[in-house]
Each structure stands twice: as C-alpha cells, then as structure tokens.
C-alpha cells in the first residue's frame, strides 16, 4: 500500500509547495526570524522581505504595494472584506449583493450579517454557473453597500464576468469585492481594468504555503478592521507577521503569474483529453460548469445512479485523489449548494466528481484515471438499485 503511486487531482483543494518557494521561505524560519516590528538587523531583514512580497503581489494584481494586506488566508480575507465594509458603511445602508454559488467563507459570513440585521441578495446563476450582469443591475438599491461575486467557482470552475460586474458596481459607486482564491495563476487579473475594489487570495491554491493570504483593498475604500491589536499592516491588520509564509506567498504568486498562458495551455490539454475520455467511455454523465468559461484544470462531472463518496473511496484505493459535491462527504444534509444552484437535480448532484489538474499531473496520470474510473463507475452502478430501474439511458427517475 505504502508504495502505491499517488495521482493527485485535487488542486482546487490545495496544492503542494513548489521547491523554489520552500527555498525562499527557509531562511525566515531560521536565521532571519526577527519580529519585523523590532529595530535590530535581523528584524530589518524580515521587514524588507515583507516589503518584497508586497511588491510581488501588487505586481501580479496590477495594484499598488500599499493596497496589499497580508492575512491568514482566503477565509479571513473574505470575512474582513464583507464584515469590514458592512460595519464601516452601516449608516449608508445595510444591503449586500452576492451570488448563490459563493464559497462558504462568503455565504456564511453573509448569513451571519443577516442575523445582525443586514439584508442580503443571493443572485441566481444559469445552468453553467454564470451570474447575469443584468440581474446584478436589477438587484442594486440605494441601500446597497457591497457587491461580492467570486472570480472563479471552486467546484465547477466557472469564471464569472468580473470586469462587467465590477463596472456595474463602479457606476453605482458601490465597493466591489471578488473572492479570487481559485483564479490566481489561472486567469490574468488586473484590479484596475477589471474594476475590482477588494480581492481575496490564498497562497496554498497556487503552490504556496497554507495559512497565508491577501486582501487587496483599493485606496480610499471605507472599511473597518477585523483583527484588532498591534499596528501591523499599516494599522489595518494586527498580529505579528507570518514572515516565512508571506515570503512564500510572494514568491509563489510571482511564479504563478509569470506565464499564465503557458501554464494554462499545458494543463488544459490534459484536462480536455481526460474530460473527453470520461464522457466518451462512461454513459449517463453530466458535465457541470461552463464548457469554455472555466478554470483550465477543472473537471466536474456527475455520474447518474451512483453516489460520490463511494466513488472517492474506490479512487483513493487506486491512489487517485479527487473530491465530490455529495452530501455524504460534507457532514451536512444537502449536496453541493453550487450544483443545486445550477439547477442540477439533487439525486444527480450526489454523484458528482471533481478532478482538478495542476502542475504535478502528467499524461500518464490522465491515462491511469481513464483506465480506472470507468471500472469504478461500472462496479458501483452494478450494485445500485437505481441503475437497473432506469433502463439503458433514462434519467434518475425513481420515485
């Protein structure tokens, strides 16, 4: 068992850390461990390293360095953007607009604010997961204080029309936040051209370390602090800086955005072959997400008549790491809110499989998954009472 090859196809969950990033971080664990707030030499080295990382992030986003704030990751950045804007603008209004397919870091934060008296509009999406800019325009009221729409969806990979949505927000002078955790390194980002006022990102999605992220805040944006305490991050985010993490994030974003086109070409070629192969060899499948406007490494397919967790267990047995939108892996009652928002029937949502390819994958990995997956699906369908009842190609029409 221990010698089995691991085929990692869950890059949207997290990535490994690139060796160049590990190497860049190492000195800040050992010799340059000083607290950047101190004045001696080793502390000055820490301070300088943070400045470098800040410049690297600014460069990647087309922002200014003093608009970059380091956080503990995507969830903190989302919480800060939403709660911080909400509390700073409470006198102006208490209406927030977001979408039905956001990450839980956004949805649950909005639900918390609803309990505190805010009103939230959750924009619907079409069958591909796209938000319609016309819906956003219609939802805006004179009480709207924040619009938050994700850049690219973590489950189905759909890329939203961010520049267009941002332009609508700009016309109404409403701050526009985007959770770009899945987008960095896969889509060219320019906060000015795309009318973005706040942007969340997380290092461990682009071959950096876990536990460190960024909130980009456009100059002049009215926002309260989330973490109170010391004067770090220009008095905006307290807490001694995670220097090694910040250095790693800076190096990782520099590498991830150096050649997005080249990276996408390579990943997308493997993804397309895998996706076509799965659909060609396995009947009764359903591709989730947009056929073109999607992240280069993302595949999300539902297999009728079977349940996602049992698929993952068999794939894991073969060394393949993947994920599912089935309720059975989430500990909740409902399958993926994203799949349901696209109108996918609940019973088919339970049979969804997400494969997300990344730098680590090879053509041999694609071949192996194409060999294993059909067997797993057949095996589970053979023991599924739904399969026989459905006939050859009928829907999941039991009860």
């Amino acid at each position, binding site marked *: 068992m221990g010698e089995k090859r691991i085929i990692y196809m869950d890059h949207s969950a997290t990535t490994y850390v690139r060796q160049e990033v590990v190497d860049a971080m190492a000195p800040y664990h050992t010799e340059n461990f000083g607290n950047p707030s101190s004045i001696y030499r080793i502390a000055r080295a820490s301070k300088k390293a943070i400045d470098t990382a800040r410049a690297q992030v600014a460069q990647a986003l087309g922002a200014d360095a003093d608009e970059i704030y380091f956080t503990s990751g995507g969830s903190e950045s989302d919480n800060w953007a939403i709660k911080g804007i909400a509390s700073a603008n409470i006198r102006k209004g208490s209406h927030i607009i977001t979408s039905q397919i956001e990450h839980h870091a956004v949805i649950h934060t909005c639900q918390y604010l609803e309990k505190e008296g805010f009103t939230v509009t959750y924009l619907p999406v079409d069958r591909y997961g796209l938000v319609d800019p016309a819906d956003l325009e219609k939802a805006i009221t004179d009480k709207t204080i924040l619009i938050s729409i994700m850049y690219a969806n973590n489950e189905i990979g759909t890329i939203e029309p961010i520049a267009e949505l941002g332009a609508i927000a700009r016309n109404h002078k409403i701050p526009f936040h985007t959770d770009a955790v899945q987008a960095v390194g896969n889509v060219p980002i320019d906060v000015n051209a795309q009318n973005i006022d706040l942007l969340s990102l997380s290092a461990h999605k682009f071959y950096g370390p876990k536990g460190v992220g960024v909130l980009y805040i456009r100059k002049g944006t009215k926002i309260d602090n989330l973490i109170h305490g010391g004067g770090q991050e220009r008095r905006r985010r307290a807490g001694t800086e995670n220097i090694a993490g910040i250095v790693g994030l800076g190096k990782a974003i520099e590498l991830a955005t150096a050649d997005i086109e080249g990276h996408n070409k390579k990943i997308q070629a493997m993804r397309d072959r895998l996706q076509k192969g799965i659909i060609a060899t396995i009947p009764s499948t359903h591709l989730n997400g947009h056929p073109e406007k999607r992240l280069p490494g993302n595949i999300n397919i539902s297999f009728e*008549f*079977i*349940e*996602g*967790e*049992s698929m993952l*267990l*068999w794939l894991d*047995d073969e060394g393949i790491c993947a994920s599912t939108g*089935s*309720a*059975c*892996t989430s*500990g*909740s*009652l*409902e*399958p993926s809110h994203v799949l349901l928002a696209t109108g996918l029937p*609940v*019973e088919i949502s*339970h049979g969804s499989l997400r494969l997300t390819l990344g730098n680590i994958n090879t053509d041999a990995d694609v071949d192996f998954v194409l060999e294993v997956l059909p067997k797993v699906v057949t095996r589970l369908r*053979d*023991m*599924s*009472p*739904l399969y*026989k009842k459905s006939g050859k190609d009928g829907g*999941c029409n*039991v*009860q």
Partner: protein
Amino acid sequence: MYSDKVMDHFKNPRNVGEIENPSGVGEVGNPVCGDIMNIYLKIENNVITDAKFKTFGCGAAIASSSMATELIRGKTLEEAWDISNKAVAEALEGLPPVKMHCSVLAEEGIHKAINDYRKKQGLEPWVEKNPHSHDHEEDGEGLTCQH
C-alpha cells in the same frame, strides 16, 4: 475515517445482487437523500436462507447493507427482526456519528422485507418497537436526510 471492517465490507461487499422470486423485499431510502437500499430475502420454514442487497449510497451505506445481510442469514425471522442498527454498526467496528444513519437504513430495510413477507403470507405486519424519527419516505420535511 472508516474502520478496517467497514472498508473490507465496502470493497468486498457480501451478498450483492437480487433474489429471483424473493419471499420478501424491503426498499428504503430516497435518491434525493443520497441513499437507497433494497433488501431481498429468501425465507423457508421461518428461517432466512438467503439475503441479498442492492444499494445506492456512500461507503457506510454499502458496508451496512453487506454486514446486515450477513447477520440475518440463517436466522429465524424473530431473531432477524431483533437485530438493531447498533448491532450492525458494532459488527462493523463502529461507524462515524454522521454515518449511523446508514445502519438505521439497514435495520429498516430488513424490517420492511420481513413485513413484506408477512403481508404476502396474510399475516399482520410486526410493529416497530423503536420507530426511528427520520424514516425517509413518510417524512415530508425536517430530518429527512440525516447523513
């Protein structure tokens, strides 16, 4: 997250399939909830001589079906009726708390199959001693899908 026993019964499920002309069939669960279990029984002289299953569901649902059919083979109907969901879970060396529901489904499937047989024989169906609060089919709302 699963015990070795659960993984063993998931990967090598015992008694998968259907029985031709079964003495009793129990179908429980709901595809909307992500699990459906069909239990087929062959009963001779009040003894379960064969038990098979077909299940749509997670690893725990498949393992629970496999273990439940193992436990009731060769048992009298009275003995089989008394096998609780806890007994199924214990035989599997435990299930994660969120998956206990799957063992409940197995118990319900057996009960339904036994009562299906009793009805066919013109006998009164037995009454559940401890009806579970979340029977999928009767529950219109609330705790329907308790994974």
